[in-house]
């Protein structure tokens, strides 16, 4: 993939720019409307994505990463914020006006079993987007075959049904369907996580090929840090609806600033025995909290190792929280963005950088430096 295009430089609008995007899901039950604050699935997320670039989004279940992808396509209506596609604000477009945009922004889904209509043949599935957008004038058969060939399906597959195919093949059908309209941006929601290990590489390589051919922008959402590192130019890490760290891939993986990123990296086991056995893990406290009941201050503080390290320092003002002494800043105040340059930003009171880098962080990322 090509080096990260710098979306910030003056050269026009990026392909996609998202500003302060939020989504709060409200409880729709009859009698609970008044009190509840709702679930803040995505909270003030901003980023941009250039043509030909891949922005990886990693996070755990409940981090809001899937909702984010759906917001960009407006499959879920945003509660606040703006989405600009090719410079045009699409946040307020009506469903009818959106159709034009939908030709250019397509989605690849995680579940290659469920995301294809079991009653339609492969040919019909691939042709459908063209029919929907009025691009089907008899004789587009060749276009169907062309797209199918592009994704590595054979012409004779067109009359078969999804259940006759293996998982990898089905994912190819889903990709063919998305590519039929020649989009500019693909939102990929866990595109390989449901596939067998030996098939993942096939699909990753196919996606890479398609991206290079058409200068596609990829918003690549996944929980697998190794896969995201492999495909992305830049990476965003989400925690409880927020992007807690975003930056160029190599910077983020080799010198992560946010303690959550550090913890994630340290938790991924690597298949090299000596390296893996020699590693120390950051064992996080508990599990990801609930977005209905967000912690005060920094959202990560109940699980953060760095906050606990800092609390031992007599110079840091601490407060009592859930039976533990933690830095007052972490518990009481929302952290501000810290910029390490080159678009590498984290929101943390005590980021892992420079002289403040803890031993834990150094050891945790050793494995992600790459051998050689």
């Amino acid at each position: 993939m090509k080096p990260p295009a710098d979306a910030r430089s003056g050269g026009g609008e990026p392909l996609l720019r998202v500003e302060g995007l939020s989504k709060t899901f409200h409880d729709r039950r009859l009698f609970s409307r008044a009190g509840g604050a709702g679930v803040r699935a995505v909270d003030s997320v901003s980023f941009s994505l250039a043509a030909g670039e891949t922005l990886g989004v990693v996070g755990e279940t409940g981090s809001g990463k899937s909702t984010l992808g759906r917001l960009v396509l407006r499959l879920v209506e945003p509660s606040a914020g703006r989405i600009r596609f090719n410079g045009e604000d699409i946040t307020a477009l009506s469903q009818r006006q959106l159709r034009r945009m939908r030709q250019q922004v397509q989605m690849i889904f995680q579940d290659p079993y469920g995301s294809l209509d079991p009653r339609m043949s492969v040919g019909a599935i691939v042709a459908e987007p063209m029919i929907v957008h009025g691009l089907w004038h008899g004789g587009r058969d060749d276009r169907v075959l062309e797209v199918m060939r592009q994704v590595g399906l054979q012409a004779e597959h067109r009359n078969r049904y999804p259940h006759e195919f293996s998982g990898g093949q089905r994912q190819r059908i889903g990709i063919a369907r998305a590519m039929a309209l020649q989009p500019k941006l693909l939102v990929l929601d866990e595109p390989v996580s449901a596939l067998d290990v030996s098939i993942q590489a096939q699909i990753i390589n196919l996606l890479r090929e398609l991206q290079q051919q058409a200068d596609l922008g990829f918003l690549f959402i996944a929980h697998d840090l190794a896969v995201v590192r492999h495909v992305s130019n830049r990476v965003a890490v989400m925690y409880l609806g927020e992007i807690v760290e975003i930056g160029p891939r190599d910077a983020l993986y080799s010198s992560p600033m946010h303690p959550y990123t550090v913890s994630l990296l340290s938790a991924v086991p690597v298949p090299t025995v000596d390296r893996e056995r020699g590693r120390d893990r950051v064992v996080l406290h508990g599990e990801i909290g609930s977005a209905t009941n967000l912690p005060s201050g920094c959202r990560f503080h109940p699980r953060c190792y760095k906050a606990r390290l800092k609390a031992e320092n007599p110079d840091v003002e601490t407060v009592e929280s859930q039976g533990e002494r933690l830095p007052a800043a972490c518990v009481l105040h929302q952290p501000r963005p810290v910029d390490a340059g080159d678009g590498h930003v984290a929101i943390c009171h005590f980021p892992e950088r420079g002289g403040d880098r803890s031993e834990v962080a150094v050891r945790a990322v050793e494995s992600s430096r790459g051998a050689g």
Partner: protein
Amino acid sequence: MSDGAVLAVRDLSTVFPSEAGPVTTVDGVSFSLGAGETLAVVGESGSGKTMTFLSVLRLVPPPGRVTGGEVLLEGADIAALPASEMRWIRGAGIAMVFQDPLTALNPVFTIGDQMLEVIRAHTAMSPRQARALALEVLERVHIPAPAKRIDDYPHQLSGGMRQRVLIAMAIALRPKVLIADEPTTALDVTVQAQILELLAELRSELGMGMVLITHDLGLVARYADRVAVMYAGRVVETSPIAQGFGRSRHPYTRSLFRSIPRLDLPADQPLTVIAGQPPDLARLPAGCAFEPRCFLGNGREDCRSERPALLPTTSDRHLSACPHWRALIDAEAGA
């Protein structure tokens, strides 16, 4: 292999009838497991890794049938035990932890009810004693405030906590063998680490033999003592981790290592694709099941005609079902 094995399986086979004829999902699988040892079983979906252990426990879903083989638990063959004794073995002899902690628990009973049910089915304990034991094992799997948690319903617990409960249920009767089938696949990576550390800790404390069924080679590197790689219902390679991992003697294992993105290799390292699709068990080739996807094969006559046996390679603890394993070492030396 060692006679001191806590679990030894020889030539286990399981067949499912299908429209296209009988399908052998477990095909002559043999392995042994020592006390306190962790055996990782690696394979893709359909490789027979889960079915092997369902066959060991005689829990193969109908119309599947175990068609042959010996299963020795501490030297005694349990393959021919009557169903009532087999029920006792499950839990007290061999326990299993499944992938999805949500569906493995019954949503309408508290976790305490469910634990007591298991304990009392296997022992003569009074409800009071059983509850005390349940609390003790919940403590053991590091569930905070177990006395409060024991009366919770499954939906009140997080995914990681549910998996801890299932592990507590599995170890309550001090089984000789614990089979963990993809125990963390449904969990987030930070929780995965917690659960696996717990399993490793319990294994050494209780001296159980542990089987870790997984597709994650990283987990194998960290937690296993030995690994068995399965493909199309057969074990194609088995080796001790310390000597054999990463020095594979089978082209399928090699390909697996090269096809996954890894954090410990440079980010731009290209992925080597394993050609083709996973094998269709109803239509296996006459020879080696991996031959159609193998980078070594290139149409070697013997690969196509004979199904290779699992034989010793450089050491008699490192077995491979590829007769051309030497070619892999040559390539290694050349690289």
